[in-house]
């Protein structure tokens, strides 16, 4: 039976009993003052005055009704969830079916390619020491190189005539080398063969046909182990080549599409969602900055900002497995590093636009894939409704900030995101590290979240690239084989305090000094007067890095300046750094909230 019927009956009964009991109590109390012995309490007394039970019954009915509605809503949501789940499973099924058919198609191609190569037209040609072609070639050789009228010695000359002058000379030199050098192995001689692969154009019945021919050589030795003859084996690999190209093209296309999908399915949904939102924002920032770049002579600051943004995209995309996006961002980064400080000409400006477009195209590729998987992200909204109903203590500040346009983001997400960065950076650098985040604060508004995430992303990557030692070195230094990186977040008065520590090598002051001089950041004189403290500050300068190569994790000299900028300029906070050489670093960041 439905609740809305039980509740009123229950309410009337309870109301009745309560009324009876309360009147009985009142009568008993009154009995002390007046004589009430004449009044006999009849249960029907209440029946004659039903107003109390009716009110209670009505109230119960309303409670029952609203509870019913809530339950129905919850059931609806659950049903919706299950439906979505079903569609997701169906989608995954469809995807895997599609993938299978693609794989089958690719396999078919490979098989075809193999059979073409096996049954390929072959031609032989023997050349003796006097460079005279000998008889002993088959007809397919003639098909490739010319007509039957060239039978005999002139065939090789015909073959020769289709090569350009340069190649002819190289081939002669090569033959000379083959005959004069008895020590070289056939495989080595083949490596030096100048006509290993060449193109030629043939006219067959008025139609121009372009062919690709490959050749390899065999060496025929006489009884004295002297090279007597060189045998060329020619293959027409035109169609095999075309098929190979087609295969590579398809392979590339599919792997591009599926790598995005694999990364989408392989990561935490909320992390992906934040990443995609962040990417949208980053692209807007980039487009704005590039416009500014055209209007300003002095571009150093703008390019620093651009480098910071691109560096973040590169690192995050890499950590999540979006390799192509990460690669493109890397290219863009290298380019901007190169042109930083230069006066930009027309050519550079065109190149900038080209790079931006490349990045944007990859982002569009993303959007395309995601819209194909619409429901993949729609799932999240249902979860939100669910939590709204089930969590009784609805966070007031959350809803207020939502109205103001700031969504609050939980530090749990920060933990997830930084753990991913930790894992991928450690793998990339061949290191082992454990990242721990402890927090007594639940969440923060999305604007600050982005800045905080960005700065810890750079700190974490730098810790792993420069601080944490390789596993063997750590054991030698009597440390746990796993590098320990921790972030503690707490709230004191109106400040959020972030305490970040790693147990790596700490800053290498000597190395920083050396790099600072190389980069003309300071002269040797100035350096010698500086305290260790001031020297470490150099690390947070724009464009400083102690690593020689720009790799996927860090080293472009961008990261630490972003840390400084985000703390001081954007978050209006401050930070202190404790360097413990050989034992790691500790950074305490205070930001007002």
């Amino acid at each position, binding site marked *: 039976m439905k609740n809305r019927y039980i509740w009123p009956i229950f309410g009337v009964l309870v109301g009745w009993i309560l009324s009876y009991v309360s009147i009985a109590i009142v009568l008993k109390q009154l009995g002390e003052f007046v004589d009430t012995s004449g009044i006999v309490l009849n249960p029907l007394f209440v029946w004659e005055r039903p107003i109390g039970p009716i009110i209670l019954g009505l109230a119960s009915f309303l409670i029952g009704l609203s509870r019913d509605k809530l339950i129905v809503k919850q059931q609806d949501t659950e049903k919706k969830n299950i439906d979505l789940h079903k569609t997701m499973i169906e989608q995954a099924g469809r995807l895997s079916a599609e993938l299978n058919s693609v794989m089958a198609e690719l396999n078919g191609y490979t098989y075809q390619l193999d059979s073409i190569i096996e049954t390929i037209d072959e031609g032989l040609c023997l050349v003796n020491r006097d460079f005279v072609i000998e008889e002993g070639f088959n007809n397919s050789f003639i098909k490739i190189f010319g007509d039957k009228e060239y039978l005999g010695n002139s065939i090789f000359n015909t073959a020769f005539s289709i090569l350009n002058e340069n190649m002819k000379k190289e081939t002669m*030199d090569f033959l000379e*080398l083959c005959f004069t050098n008895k*020590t*070289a*192995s056939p495989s*080595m001689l083949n*490596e*030096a063969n*100048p006509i290993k692969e060449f193109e030629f154009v043939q006219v067959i019945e008025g139609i121009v046909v372009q062919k690709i021919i490959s050749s390899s050589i065999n060496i025929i030795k006489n009884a004295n182990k002297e090279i007597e003859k060189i045998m060329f084996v020619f293959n027409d690999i035109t169609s095999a080549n075309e098929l190979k190209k087609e295969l590579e093209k398809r392979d590339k296309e599919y792997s591009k599409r599926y790598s995005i999908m694999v990364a989408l399915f392989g990561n935490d949904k909320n992390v992906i969602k934040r990443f995609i939102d962040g990417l949208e924002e980053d692209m807007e920032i980039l487009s704005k900055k590039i416009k500014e770049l055209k209007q300003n002579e002095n571009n150093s600051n703008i390019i620093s900002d651009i480098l910071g943004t691109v560096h973040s995209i590169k690192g995050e995309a890499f950590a999540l497995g979006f390799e192509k996006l990460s690669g493109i961002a890397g290219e863009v980064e290298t380019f901007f590093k190169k042109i930083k400080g230069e006066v930009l000409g027309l050519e550079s400006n065109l190149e900038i636009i080209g790079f931006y477009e490349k990045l944007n195209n990859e982002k569009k590729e993303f959007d395309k894939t995601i819209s194909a998987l619409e429901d993949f992200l729609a799932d999240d909204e249902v979860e939100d409704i669910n939590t709204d109903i089930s969590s009784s203590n609805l966070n007031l500040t959350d809803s207020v900030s939502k109205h103001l346009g700031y969504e609050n983001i939980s530090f749990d997400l920060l933990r997830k995101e930084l753990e991913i960065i930790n894992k991928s950076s450690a793998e990339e650098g061949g290191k082992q590290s454990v990242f721990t985040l402890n927090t007594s604060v639940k969440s923060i508004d999305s604007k600050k979240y982005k800045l905080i995430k960005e700065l810890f992303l750079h700190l974490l990557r730098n810790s792993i690239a420069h601080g944490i030692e390789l596993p063997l070195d750590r054991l030698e230094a009597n440390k746990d084989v796993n590098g320990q990186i921790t972030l503690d977040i707490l709230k004191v008065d109106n400040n959020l305090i972030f305490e970040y520590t790693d147990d790596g090598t700490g800053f290498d002051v000597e190395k920083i000094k050396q790099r600072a001089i190389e980069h003309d950041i300071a002269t040797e004189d100035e350096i010698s007067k500086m305290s260790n403290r001031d020297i470490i500050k150099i690390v947070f300068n724009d464009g400083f890095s102690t690593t020689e190569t720009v790799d996927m994790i860090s080293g472009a000299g961008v990261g630490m300046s972003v840390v400084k900028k985000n703390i001081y300029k954007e978050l209006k906070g401050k930070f202190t750094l404790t360097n413990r050489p050989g034992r790691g670093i500790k950074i305490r960041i205070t930001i007002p909230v």
Partner: protein
Amino acid sequence: MKALVVDDSRIMRNIIINILKEKKMDGDDILDAPEGKTALEILNKESIDLLFVDWNMPKLNGLDLVKIVRKIEKYQDLPIIMVTSEAARYNVMEAIKAGVTDYIVKPITGVTIMEKIKAYM
């Protein structure tokens, strides 16, 4: 069978030596030299059956060393394997002209070395 490994990098020498040892070659039969002059002394004193030479070495480079070795009567048929990071066609031509038998392109692995030397062992 005796092998000589000539390379100015100790690490590279050790890699090749270890691979040869894995292939059941006696440690005593594997000699090594850090540069050309020492290598020539060993070649004169001993009878070597397989020679590994690094292309880029200070003072006497690998190609010049091979040219000198080929002039020694007893080493005219000696298998000489060049270890190099250059594999362009003209590099190979140059090596063939100097008298190199085969070459291995860096970075080397056990598989690539075995592939090349099984014909000479």
